[in-house]
């Protein structure tokens, strides 16, 4: 199926692609160097965080997860798109998206590594990760997630390898199809399990919903598709590959559908939460008019923009589609922030008690004032380390571009 190279441009391809490849090569190297530098800075900050303590982050006892777990959620979601975009056509034997399959999987791998890295930087005792193997507790959704993530990463790599090998005919189409089906199942699982890390927590009104699993899958599709679109458009612009506009449009239509489903799920969830006017009403208030309303409304607006661009034929120009994709990614990120912070924003016991600098991020007042705005906001070291992880993701992706034959087969 890598045959989906744009036939129309095939004739002039060799010379042009050669020159683009050179330019791309230089740009790529610069990109790799930058990504590596960002990664190294991130690692240095992480070492600083470990030695000085997580007290340097904005997280505290009553808001014990923050940007890192948001990043984890977000990157797990991002990782999905590439793989799904790549594997669905293969798995179901339908026409694909024009030769971007391997690149798409590469984005998945990079995002999965980044997602795992986000968990690692959040750990207090990363040197004890061996405990995960020596005393595994299989009732823990986090344990499930760790297992599924690793399986997913391995499968992604295998899948990529299989595609590359398939290009040279070493792997049969059938075998590739088997791998793609496994990868697809695993992708769906990884999002569901990540959702379960949250949705099985009866402690948090906002999280405790059966909808969260499917919703995570859809969100993953949204931002995954958007990421592949951006990557494809960028690589095309850089001359790394050639892609017919129709594939972009095809993906855009999918993106439009996904984001509408995502919004629909959100609507369902808000209705279910708010309708009984019980405790769930607080969740709706928090999102619609409370401390997270900026995130909520921005997400809605960006989602609508995405949908409009994707659905109105006249608007589906490359620049606008990139804008729409970016909007979708940002919208999903905002959604992740709402989920994470929102989980901590509504304490079950909000009675006044001793408040110290370790109790809650905004501890210098009362419980009420600590929750009056966003209960949590990251510190600069968190942004720095998170940036490092993103750098790592880029590094892996760019290295993949540089070192692996990810271009569509001629």
């Amino acid at each position, binding site marked *: 199926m890598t045959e989906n190279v744009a036939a129309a441009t095939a004739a002039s391809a060799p010379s042009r692609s050669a020159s683009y490849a050179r330019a791309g090569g230089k740009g790529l190297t610069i990109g790799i160097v930058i990504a590596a530098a960002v990664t190294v800075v991130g690692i240095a900050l992480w070492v600083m965080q470990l030695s000085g303590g997580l007290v340097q982050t904005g997280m*505290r006892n009553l808001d014990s997860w923050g940007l890192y777990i948001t990043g984890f959620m977000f990157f797990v979601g991002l990782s999905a798109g590439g793989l799904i975009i790549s594997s669905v056509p293969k798995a179901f034997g339908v026409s694909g998206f024009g030769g971007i399959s391997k690149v798409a999987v590469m984005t998945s791998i990079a995002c999965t590594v980044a997602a795992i890295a986000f968990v690692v930087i*959040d750990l207090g005792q990363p040197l004890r990760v061996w405990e995960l193997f020596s005393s*595994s507790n299989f009732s*823990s959704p986090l344990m499930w997630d760790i297992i599924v993530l690793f399986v997913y990463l391995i499968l992604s790599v295998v899948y990529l390898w299989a595609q590359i090998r398939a290009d040279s005919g070493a792997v049969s189409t059938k075998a590739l199809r088997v791998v793609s089906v496994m990868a697809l199942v695993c992708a769906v699982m990884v999002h569901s399990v990540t959702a379960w890390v949250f949705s099985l*927590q009866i402690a948090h009104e906002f999280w405790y919903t059966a909808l969260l699993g499917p919703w995570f899958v859809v969100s993953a599709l949204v931002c995954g598709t958007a990421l592949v679109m951006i990557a494809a458009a960028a690589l095309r612009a850089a001359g790394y590959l050639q892609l017919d506009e129709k594939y972009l449009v095809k993906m855009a239509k999918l993106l439009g559908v996904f984001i509408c489903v995502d919004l629909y799920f959100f609507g369902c969830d808000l209705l279910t939460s708010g309708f009984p006017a019980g405790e769930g009403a607080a969740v709706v208030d928090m999102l619609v008019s409370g401390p997270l309303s900026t995130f909520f409304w921005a997400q809605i607006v960006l989602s609508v923009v995405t949908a409009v661009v994707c659905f109105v034929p006249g608007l589906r120009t490359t620049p606008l589609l990139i804008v729409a994709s970016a909007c979708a990614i940002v919208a999903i990120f905002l959604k992740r922030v709402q989920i994470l912070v929102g989980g901590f924003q509504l304490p079950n016991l909000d009675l*006044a008690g001793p408040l*110290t600098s*370790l109790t809650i991020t905004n501890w210098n007042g009362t419980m*009420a004032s600590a929750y009056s705005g966003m209960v949590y906001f990251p510190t600069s070291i968190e942004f720095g380390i998170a940036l490092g992880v993103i750098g790592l993701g880029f590094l892996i992706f760019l290295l993949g571009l540089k070192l692996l034959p990810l271009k569509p087969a001629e």
Partner: protein
Amino acid sequence: MRMGMVIDLHRCVGCHTCSVACKVANNVPKETWWNRVLTDGGEAIDTLGGEYPNASIKFFPVSCQHCENPACVKVCPVGATYKDPATGIVRQDYDKCIGCRMCMAACPYTGVRSFNWEEPQNYLDHNLGDADAPEHQKHVVEKCTFCYQRQARGEEPACMELCMARARFWGDLDDPESDVFKLVHSRESITLLPEKGTKPSVYYLV
């Protein structure tokens, strides 16, 4: 056996003595409280809520509820938080904890778990409290242990040692002869957040 606690809210005056007793006996690090007395009243601790003259205040001493069905135990990926089969006490193995804080997210009882966000700070140059209280560690989650070390010696938890108002009772909730059993079965009591299904071993007489 299911060791548990009964707290008489009518007798509790919110003096914070149990909180301090806990802190000192377990050498709990600076700015960390395993056992807190929460004010159900005004916005600030120990102030009355409502408007004069219809002001009101109540106190809830809250620490780990040592649930029969603990949310934290299930989610810990490495089994660092676990239920002691002999006593029903929910314990925490500091040496095993990877610091993922999954248990903190899972526990419905806001704030009973704490994380050592930095190297645990002693108040004084030397360790306070019980010699056999486990050393605190950086970047691990901890909480009330029902003073496991004292319990092992046949003593009561520190918060129980001498509640001035005599509002606290301690014992085996499965033993019909125990004070706690009798109180739970003879007086009106509540548990915190029963809708969460965690079945706390801490009962409040109302």
